[in-house]
């Protein structure tokens, strides 16, 4: 039963991903992307990572896509009908196809690694996923956490300066 559900979700994800790259109007592709993000969120839940799903929805679907849609609206971009030259499209599809083939080959060729980590599936369920992540985040990964804050600061300052009309 679960696999059937999984198949439906993946079908939806793939169709919306394709929609993202094919539809002419950027708004439609934005919406399709949001749809993909939701599918991903469900995956995360299926992988016993509910907190991640929540964060995914909030950050990606909520913040980033909203920003994107806002920019599209701000710049009221006319739908340009011109498509890339055909030969470029053909090459890129071939290239995309080859990346797919490569990754699939890696997936199937690689031997299954041993589960080494301390947190088994049911542990997450009974202790609570968020608590575990919090503990992990603020003990081993404290330094990267601080660095990401600096990264965000830099991004904010950069975005403000770049987007201002007269510097």
């Amino acid at each position, binding site marked *: 039963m679960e696999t059937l559900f999984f198949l439906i979700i993946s079908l939806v994800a793939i169709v919306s991903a394709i929609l993202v790259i094919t539809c002419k109007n950027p708004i439609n592709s934005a919406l399709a992307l949001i749809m993909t993000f939701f599918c991903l969120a469900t995956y995360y839940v299926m992988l016993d990572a509910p907190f991640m799903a929540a964060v995914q929805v909030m950050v990606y679907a909520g913040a980033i896509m909203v920003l994107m849609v806002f920019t599209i609206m701000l710049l009221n971009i006319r739908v340009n009908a011109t498509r*890339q030259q055909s030969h*470029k499209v053909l*090459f890129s599809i071939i*290239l995309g196809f*080859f*990346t797919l083939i*490569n990754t699939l080959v*890696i997936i199937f*060729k690689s031997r299954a690694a041993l589960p080494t980590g301390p947190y088994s599936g049911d542990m997450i369920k009974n202790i609570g996923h968020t608590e575990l992540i919090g503990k992990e985040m603020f003990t081993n990964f404290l330094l990267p956490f601080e660095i990401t804050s600096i990264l965000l600061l830099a991004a904010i300052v950069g975005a403000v300066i770049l987007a201002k009309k007269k510097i």
Partner: protein
Amino acid sequence: MFDNVWLIPILPFIGFLINGLFGKKIKNETVIGTIAAGAVFGSFIVSCMTLYKLLSLGSEERLAEVKFFSWITSGTFNADVAFLIDPLSCIMIMIVSGVGFLIHLYSIAYMHGEEGFYRYFAYLNLFTFSMFLLVLGNNLLLMFVGWEGVGLCSYLLIGYYFHKKSAGDAGKKAFVMNRVGDFGFLLGLFTLFWYMGSTHNVWTITFSEMAKTSHLLPTGGVVTVITLCFFLGATGKSAQIPLYTWLPDAMEGPTPVSALIHAATMVTAGVYMIARMNYLFIRSPETLTVIAVIGACTALFAATIGTAQNDIKRVLAYSTVSQLGYMFLAMGVGAFGAGVFHLMTHAFFKACLFLGSGAVIHSMHGALHHAHSHDDAQDMRNMGGLKSKMPITFATFLLATIAIAGIPGFSGFFSKDEILWQAFSNPHHGSLNILLWGMGAIAAGLTAFYMFRLVFMTFFGECRITPKAKDHLHESPLVIVIPLIVLAGLSVVGGYIGIPKVIGEVLGGIPNYFEHYLDPVFKYSEEYMSVHGAHGGIHNIALEWGLMGTSVLIAIIGITVAYALYVSNTGIPVKFVAAFPALHRAVYNKWYIDELYDFMIVNPCKSFSQFLWKGFDVIVIDGAVNGVAKSVMALSGVFRLMQTGLLSNYAWSMAFGVVVMLSYFILK
């Protein structure tokens, strides 16, 4: 015993240093002259003492080596600065210092008023120093130092009037031709050193050791190569057939220089070298034939050119080349003693002739200068009748001319006749002897002809000088005349110390002092001859007298023809020239040898090097280097086009890169 020998070369060297460094400040000509002449006179005194000490020794142990310091020692090769005193070197130092001193004395007056007076005497002393090195050196390397040193000094002295382009060219020509000869000398030295070392483990270049180990040398083969190379060196230095054209051009230098360097001393270096290494030359019959033939050819060839020259010094230059041919002829037939004897007598009368011609030119120059005419002071055609104007010069000149012509009783006769007889009777060349003797005799006749032509044209007949200058012609000052007289005396008396055997017995058993004196030097070659030589030499007294008579007869014929042409009826030479214009022009232009050398060697060399530079160096090599640079630029031009500026291209190439790498790692 001979410890003061080092004084001989050092005195002229000190004279050179003083005049060279401080000459400009001294400025007083007599002081510079006395320093230079005094230095050579000092060497003359010491050489006399050395000769006297040498004669006091018994004839067997007349060999002494005095070592000063070791010059170059590296590996198996060592050469040290050491002097060898033996009969041969004693004669040479006597000639060099004696004639040298007289010429120094003569030049004090001759070079009076010259702008570079100190420079002239500095170079002359340097020349005497290097000549002493050449003559006294006990090993081949030291001899080579003297050898090149005299070449250098002749370059400096020929180019003395350096503002004249012809003098500069003549100097350069002399040096380069000597250098070609030195190339041969070097090769001979290397081959000898290498062969003796590698096969017999005798690593030496000193003459005494070479002589002692000369029995190890084979006959012919490698010795022929060695001796031919040395002979090439000798032809370069002593102006024989292939490399003689520099000597006539060397007359650009002042006359005393021609007298000292190009008559008495330097040009005899080649003869001395062969005499010094007689044990080598005797061992290769092929080389001896080559030397004899070239000697005879040079004698005849130069004599023919001498007959048609008008410049008084050119005539004497060609006569020197011819007389040197005689000396090499003597060496070629194995008569080393006769060759050295002729060298000595030639030094006397040729120096006297040159100095005499110098006196004539000097007074002609003065006279023409007074008359402000620009005629050439050396051209015999505007001379004549100087007999009355310059009696002493005429007398000495005549004596020397008789000596060179080979009239009996004078030194020339004894030495030249001895050579002719040895050429005829030597055991080495069999049937070739007659040809050699014939060429020698004809050359003797021609010598007599052109020498007396010179005397008649300058001293006899009416004076052809421009009328205004006629009364300015006067006898040269005392300092010029004394050396003339001394040299004329020597050229008369000089012959009597080496009277040939056959005449000696007739005149009451006077032995040939000169031959006996030189015997110890040629000891090893005599031994070799007694063991290996073919014993076919002719010892017929009557034949010797007969040949002697014929050669004297030819000389007298030469004189009478000259008298007939240039004194009694002077019209004949003009008619003769008109009759054979081509022959005359050819002879007058030295058979176009110089033009031939230019055409065959000098110009192709120049054009080839021009091609090498412009063609090969600039186009090929530089072209390749710059070509590499340009191709790199072109290549970078191509790669530059890859940056199209389009984002999609860059993204695509990045993705392509990832795919390729990924697939590589998967497939590996």
